[in-house]
């Protein structure tokens, strides 16, 4: 693997040129799983991945007593992700943040999909702030460290939704108020003198309180699968917006400013699409019986919360871990369970 450093401003023109070239980013790839492992070696480093769906992943490299610490980070391969690596991450004075770019034979950019597991090899990150170009002194390198990879294992996106100003650097590591502290490390992002934790408009976007991009990653909460970038997918995160109020007591789980009772998609899983209504009625005993499961397990067996979805599953003859489920199950005959199973099989969890 060959690495190159580009000026952030240079990268912009490279991206634009590549964009005019057309479909260089459409390499056909088929993957069996929804995630890939990106690995490599680095100096002691925090590796973060910011993805287009708002999900967030991080690992620290493993100190194996060499200068090249190995790391593996599992990221989705169905959405684009952007890598940022930080050396001396716990040391404010010596921290160095580097945006990673990818170069394939056809294109280059900072947002990519790893079609398969890829080994980036050794990534020569700077360890000393004096060794990077950093005009505003925010410890975020003005250069993108680009790694040359095989074009068939990676799809590079020409536009990075996580990079509003198209300079290649993800929004989170910009320094919006130009105070020499990147937004990520800045307790007062907009320099209005109020600590972000007490500032109702902490990113200076003039949206007070119910901010539709809580984590400032450029993905609006309603498209962000991890609203608070705590690394826990909102579908399993008991406090999606990290406001300290557990979702089940929080009247606005996703902090999109729409109270849950008015929000048809309060968990922001984007499953509000209009349903397809049939043209005619067909009697179905299993559906009638099975619809009685929906009060607890959701319409057509798709739960809206941590309770189990049963679409596509079997109503088994077994002892359930939930006593209340046993109390229900005992009320159904074997024939009724068969009918229900036949109907459940017709349902997909994406219904």
């Amino acid at each position, binding site marked *: 693997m060959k690495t190159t450093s580009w000026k952030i401003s240079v990268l912009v023109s490279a991206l634009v040129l590549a964009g005019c070239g057309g479909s260089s980013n459409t390499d056909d790839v088929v993957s069996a799983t929804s995630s890939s492992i990106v690995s490599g070696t680095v100096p002691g480093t925090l590796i973060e991945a910011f993805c287009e769906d708002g999900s967030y992943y991080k690992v620290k490299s493993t100190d194996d007593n060499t200068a090249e610490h190995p790391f593996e980070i599992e990221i989705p391969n169905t959405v684009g992700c952007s890598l940022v690596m930080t050396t001396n991450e716990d040391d404010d004075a010596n921290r160095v943040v580097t945006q990673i770019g990818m170069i394939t034979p056809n294109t280059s950019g900072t947002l990519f999909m790893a079609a398969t597991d890829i080994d980036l090899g050794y990534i020569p990150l700077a360890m000393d702030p004096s060794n990077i170009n950093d005009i505003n002194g925010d410890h975020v390198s003005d250069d993108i460290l680009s790694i040359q990879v095989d074009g068939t294992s990676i799809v590079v996106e020409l536009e990075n939704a996580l990079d509003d100003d198209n300079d290649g650097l993800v929004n989170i590591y910009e320094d919006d108020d130009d105070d020499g502290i990147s937004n990520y490390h800045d307790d007062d992002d907009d320099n209005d003198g109020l600590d972000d934790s007490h500032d109702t408009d902490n990113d200076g976007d003039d949206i007070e309180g119910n901010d539709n991009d809580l984590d400032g990653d450029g993905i609006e909460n309603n498209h962000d699968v991890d609203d608070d970038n705590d690394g826990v997918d909102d579908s399993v995160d008991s406090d999606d917006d990290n406001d300290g109020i557990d979702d*089940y007591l929080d009247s606005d789980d996703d902090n999109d400013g729409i109270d849950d009772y008015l929000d048809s998609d309060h968990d922001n899983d984007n499953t509000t699409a209009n349903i397809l209504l049939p043209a*005619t009625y067909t009697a179905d005993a299993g559906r009638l019986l099975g619809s009685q499961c929906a009060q607890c397990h959701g319409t057509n067996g798709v739960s809206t919360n941590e309770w189990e979805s049963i679409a596509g599953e079997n109503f088994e003859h077994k002892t359930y871990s939930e006593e209340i489920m046993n109390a*229900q199950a005992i009320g159904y005959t074997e024939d009724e369970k068969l009918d229900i199973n036949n109907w459940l099989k017709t349902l997909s969890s994406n219904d």
Partner: protein
Amino acid sequence: MKRTHLNSRRDFMKFVGVSSFFAVAPSIAEAATTPHIVVVGGGFSGATCAKYLKMWGGSSVNVTIIEANPTYVSPILSNLVLNGQKTTADLSFTYGDLNNKYDINMIHSTVSSVDKINQSLTLENGSSVQYDKLVLASGIDFIKVNDYDITKVPHAWKAGEQTNLLKAQIDGMVDGDTFTMTVPAAPYRCPPGPYERACVVADYLKNTKGFTNCKVNVLDANANITVEADTFGAKFAEYGIEYKPSTTVTAVDDNTKTLTYTEGAESKTLSSKVLNVIPNQKAAPIVFTAGVNSGNWAPINPLSYESTETGAEGIYIIGDSQATGQPKAGHIGNSEAKVCADAILRTINGVALYASPKTNSACYSPTSATEASWLSGVFKYDSSTQTMVVSNLAAGESATENYRKMFWWSENLFSDTFT
């Protein structure tokens, strides 16, 4: 055909106009039109019935909900408004999804009369709505012992403004004050609800407010705690709640907040800083208007929920107003609604009714700000008596793990009903 929201008068008249045509020329209407099913009441049973009629019947049926209020406030979880863990806004649902996703017509009005022969409803504004099938899902009405002001002595048994009134009164209490509530004679809406409320209020006063000298009285018209007696009995003892079974309220004075009641042969009075009288109950007024009641409730065939009263063919009663022995509550109202929706669709399509429907009831009851208990029942049709009977009943004692599960249950129930 996409039907839009029928709020505006112009759209509404268009709808009425089309319907009137059916009445004038019924033979043409039967051949050429889509059956129109009108559901009166948009609570747990009514909203579910409308949704499932469209989900299963699709464009083969027109479905309209007539509901007075643009927003429904769930009585389920509303005792948590009293201790501040929820607001009525948290428990409010509108009809946007039913209207948009399921193509259900919404009319926000009240039915003033039912013409069973011409299958026509008259609304309070004088307009009429024609139906092929009519589903009554309007919940309960109260039987007050005398005329008193419910803004002074709230029942808070229909959620919304009443809930907030009671909350405000409780928050006005100081240490040493008394809270008195009454439990209506069965059958009444939400069997565990009154006992749950007593626990939540006692816990709130004692543990949240820190009032060690407040008193909570529960006057029960029934001889015993009607459900989960072990759980609630233990909690009453823990909170020091004074429980008086077999008491009959005979008068309510809203100014002095005084109850007159009989206990045994004796007539007694009790004054209280906050008085929460939950009156005895009967079917909703529409059931009486339509003349489909027998006594206080509406008898139905459990295979379809169609009225068994003479001349009431095509009228179905689901939820709290119907007269089966099933409990009166939101979860089982939703359950009955699916049986009813399927039965209506079978009838319209000439398919025999499903012969052995099952319904279920489940509920989690908060007993404090951190604990809940549960009650679960499955009901089956008994063909020999033509009634719904218990297939299995079970209860889970008060525990912290149930508190969280209570919200998972309610979220899916709310969603299955309104979204």
